[in-house]
């Protein structure tokens, strides 16, 4: 069909659903598509809007426009909303004066925030929470607010409250008209549990409050409630529900619902057969589907109908699972079904803030729905159990409590019927996933995403997809081994032993002996780490098998510049060295910041400047801090007995000794240590991979702690030992970890997976139960003795220095795209 002969589809609204519709319709190649959007920017991900406050930019949130600009492009009019529709002539008039004929018109106008009719809503400091522009206005206003309130304790309202917390507003209140939070999704008991968790996080909740007026002169000063109470606030975000954007449809004489929404049939057709409505502006079965997944499904239905199909919209499961301010909240099926229509099973753990409720049919055979607060790990399987009417086991309480008897778990996923919908964003069934495993060898999440698109939307189904892959492999009789990657059929531990046994010194040799293909970004750095731990030859010898940061001996930052972190053992630094850091940072225009590990980080170095910077630092007596490597970072210390009136021993000297002992040693993941001079624990040693705390009689040694996203306290390995014993145990512990841990697992994760746990580890390290102690101490001593500063090696070798350029054919030229913005008298990387 020639371009001119193709029918024209005009889409009104450039939100997530409009974007999805255009992408799908474009792929059919049967239409000319013209899109009008009100907002000035490309479509963006509204579901993750609150991440805008955690540092994501508008560009991060923008949705892909895959295929839009190939061949006959989709015509895009942004910042130009449609003003009028002439249904007789089949024309739309835009605000900027464009007159565009259409054959098919699709409304994807979405919804706007519902603003209740309360006196004072027009005051300065009152906002809604809907678009990036709204968020920008909130962000701009927030610094002058000491207290803020969100009106509406629903899903969006709590998101907005999280945003206010993220913006650092000290007093954040949530006002809800109903007697509980998220009244559309969860029951009162669930709300109670959520309330106590949210209160602990600093939110102040006011339920059963009806707002009468917003007080203040020009600017909001307080809220006045119907119960005659009053709450002084500096700003208010209204999130009291959504209102479908149907004003244009009304104007065009299309049928709309009494409470808003463009009336459509199950083909999403409006009262005019050439006009469709999809997403939150459409009213179907008497309801507005206020989630993105049903909106996507609607878009797919219309594309199907326009391209000759006859699909209808079946209604949609409104089950949801989300993380609200760090709390799991999920609701599925019919969460409110109550006795006598069903029987409910409730589990409540007020200590951990967990509430689970499932509703099962009177005969005990089927799951009808439920609510999960605080722990929603079982959500996917429970939802599948509802949707597929899977007959429940005799003890349905196992569904929320886990199996507590001898019965094995894991029959779960395979008992799902073939047509069970696993990924609802992309409509991928269990059968499709299992077939992809068996027939297309899709045995990793990446290949599965490519084969089936499962997990490419919200990502919520990924754990279930992983379980299905493993279960299918097992069902096919395939042995599920812990292998490094597709190139090596060995675990890291096996490869470590092989490398040592066969005296293998290079990656190429290892690949030839035990691998296949050309390797990848998983096995190369893993082998690099093994080779470094075995032989401790400087990593610059095999630069291209190192992870990018190890290749450039610096940490890549936004924009492609690098950061420089010299070692400052134990956090002790002389005034002269401090001056050098300042001078170097000034000379190369580097942003400086104190790190969490008591060092100084210099950001924004051009790759070509790195050798010069390090030359000056080394000249002044610094050495590499290995911040770029999976290696020892710092051993943090408190000031200890040399100054502190409580200090028992000299923690700084011991920290320096330990840091210098283990510096540069490569491990499966980064390593951090700490030494405290007394039980007050100012060095936070119990949050480190190894922590040493002074006692009256010597030192206590703790191991396997970490901070980060899953903090874990270190556990006590030995009590009241002297320094030499401490170092001996550390040598053994570290070598045991280096030899046996999986790639990229910290000591805490390694211990968690270890059979026998801490008592086994204690036996191995302290009681030498494997008889490996002496060997490990020798191996460690070898690593300690062969240490050399990698940067020193580079600085002194003109050939190695040559690698540090952006353009190999123009070595003096810097990357012209690398730019910085000013920030508090320093620079920062430009937003990406």
């Amino acid at each position, binding site marked *: 069909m020639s371009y001119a002969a193709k029918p024209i589809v005009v889409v009104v609204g450039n939100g997530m659903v409009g974007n999805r519709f255009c992408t799908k319709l474009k792929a059919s190649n049967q239409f000319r598509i013209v899109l009008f959007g009100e907002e000035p920017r490309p479509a963006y991900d509204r579901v993750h809007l609150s991440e805008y406050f955690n540092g994501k930019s508008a560009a991060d949130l923008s949705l892909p426009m895959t295929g839009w600009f190939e061949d006959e492009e989709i015509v895009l009019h942004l910042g130009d909303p449609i003003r009028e529709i002439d249904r007789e002539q089949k024309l739309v008039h835009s605000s900027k004066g464009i007159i565009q004929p259409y054959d098919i018109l699709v409304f994807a106008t979405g919804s706007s925030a519902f603003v209740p009719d309360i006196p004072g809503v027009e005051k300065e400091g009152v906002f809604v929470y809907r678009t990036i522009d709204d968020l920008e206005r909130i962000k701009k206003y927030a610094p002058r607010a000491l207290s803020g309130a969100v009106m509406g304790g629903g899903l969006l309202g709590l998101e907005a409250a999280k945003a206010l917390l993220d913006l650092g507003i000290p007093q954040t209140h949530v006002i809800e008209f109903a007697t509980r939070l998220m009244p559309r999704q969860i029951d009162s008991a669930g709300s109670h549990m959520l309330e106590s968790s949210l209160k602990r996080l600093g939110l102040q909740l006011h339920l059963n409050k009806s707002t009468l007026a917003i007080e203040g002169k020009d600017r909001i000063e307080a809220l006045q409630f119907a119960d005659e109470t009053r709450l002084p606030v500096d700003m208010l975000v209204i999130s009291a529900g959504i209102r479908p954007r149907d004003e244009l449809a009304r104007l065009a004489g299309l049928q709309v619902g009494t409470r808003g929404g463009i009336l459509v049939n199950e083909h999403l057709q409006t009262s005019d057969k050439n006009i469709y409505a999809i997403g939150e502006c459409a009213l179907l079965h008497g309801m507005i589907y206020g989630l993105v997944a049903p909106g996507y499904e609607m878009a797919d239905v219309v594309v199907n109908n326009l391209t000759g199909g006859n699909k209808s919209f079946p209604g949609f499961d409104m089950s949801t699972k989300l993380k609200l301010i760090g709390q799991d909240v999920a609701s599925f099926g019919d969460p409110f079904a109550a006795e006598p229509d069903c029987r409910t099973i409730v589990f409540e753990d007020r200590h951990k803030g967990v509430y689970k409720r499932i509703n099962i049919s009177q005969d005990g055979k089927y799951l009808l729905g439920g609510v999960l607060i605080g722990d929603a790990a079982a959500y996917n399987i429970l939802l599948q159990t509802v949707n597929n009417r899977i007959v429940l086991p005799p003890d349905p309480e196992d569904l929320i409590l886990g199996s507590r008897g001898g019965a094995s778990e894991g029959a779960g996923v395979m008992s799902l019927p073939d047509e069970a919908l696993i990924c609802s964003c992309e409509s991928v069934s269990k059968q499709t996933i299992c077939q992809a495993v068996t027939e297309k060898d899709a045995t990793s999440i990446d290949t599965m995403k490519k084969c089936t698109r499962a997990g490419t939307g919200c990502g919520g189904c990924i754990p279930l997809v992983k379980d299905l892959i493993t279960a299918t492999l097992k069902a096919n009789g395939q042995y599920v081994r812990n292998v490094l990657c597709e190139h090596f059929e060995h675990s890291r531990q096996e490869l470590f032993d092989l490398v040592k046994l066969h005296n293998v010194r290079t990656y190429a040799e290892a690949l030839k002996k035990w691998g296949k*293909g050309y390797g990848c*970004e998983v096995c190369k750095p893993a082998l690099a780490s093994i080779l470094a731990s075995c032989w401790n030859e400087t990593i610059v010898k095999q630069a*291209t098998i190192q*992870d990018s940061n190890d290749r450039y001996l610096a940490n890549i930052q936004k924009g492609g510049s690098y950061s420089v972190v010299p070692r400052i053992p134990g956090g002790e630094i002389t005034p002269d060295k401090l001056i050098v850091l300042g001078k170097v940072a000034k000379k190369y225009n580097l942003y400086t910041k104190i790190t969490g590990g008591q060092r100084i980080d210099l950001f924004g170095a051009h790759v070509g400047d790195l050798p010069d910077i390090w030359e000056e630092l080394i000249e002044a007596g610094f050495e590499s801090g290995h911040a770029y490597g999976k290696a020892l970072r710092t051993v943090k210390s408190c000031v200890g007995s040399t100054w502190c009136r409580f200090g028992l021993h000299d923690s700084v000297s011991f920290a320096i000794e330990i840091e210098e002992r283990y510096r540069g040693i490569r491990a499966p993941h980064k390593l951090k240590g700490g030494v405290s001079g007394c039980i007050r624990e100012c060095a936070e040693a119990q949050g480190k991979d190894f922590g040493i705390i002074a006692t009256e009689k010597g030192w206590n040694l703790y191991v396997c702690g970490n901070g980060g996203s899953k903090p874990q306290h270190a556990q006590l390995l030995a009590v009241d030992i002297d320094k030499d014993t401490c170092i001996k145990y550390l040598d053994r512990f570290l070598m045991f970890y280096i030899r046996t841990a999986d790639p990229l697992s910290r000591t805490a994760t390694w211990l968690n997976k270890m059979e026998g746990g801490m008592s086994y580890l204690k036996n191995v390290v302290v009681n030498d139960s494997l008889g490996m102690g002496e060997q490990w101490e020798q191996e460690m001593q070898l690593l300690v003795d062969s240490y050399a500063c990698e940067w020193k090696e580079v600085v002194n070798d003109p050939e190695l220095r040559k690698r540090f350029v952006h*353009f*190999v054919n123009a070595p003096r030229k810097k990357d012209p795209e*690398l730019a910085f913005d000013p920030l508090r008298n320093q620079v920062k990387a430009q937003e990406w």
Partner: protein
Amino acid sequence: METTITNLKWQLACHVEDIPADGGACVLLGGEQIAIFHFSHPDQWFATQNRCPHKQQMALSRGMIGSTGEACEPKVACPFHKKTFSLVTGECLSGDDYQIQTYPVKVKGDKVYVGISA
């Protein structure tokens, strides 16, 4: 898909020694940043745009190279977020809808040439 190669211009990019074995480096050709990659066993050369389409960073040349699948399709992983791309087709191999530009490479003696369509 058919590519017209009649207008291909071979431009001298760099010398063989400029590109580390089993790694990549970036060259500037007519204002464009192009990443060149060299596999040593067997000896193979590839070139792509240097910009990772995910976050628009000029970084692909600093990524680790390797292969995927039985057919050993050569690939590069961006150092920022490990999105991987086929060095043959430019297709994103980690499930996203990104596409990068690839260029033909020719090695004559110690000189490396990149074919750029005029």
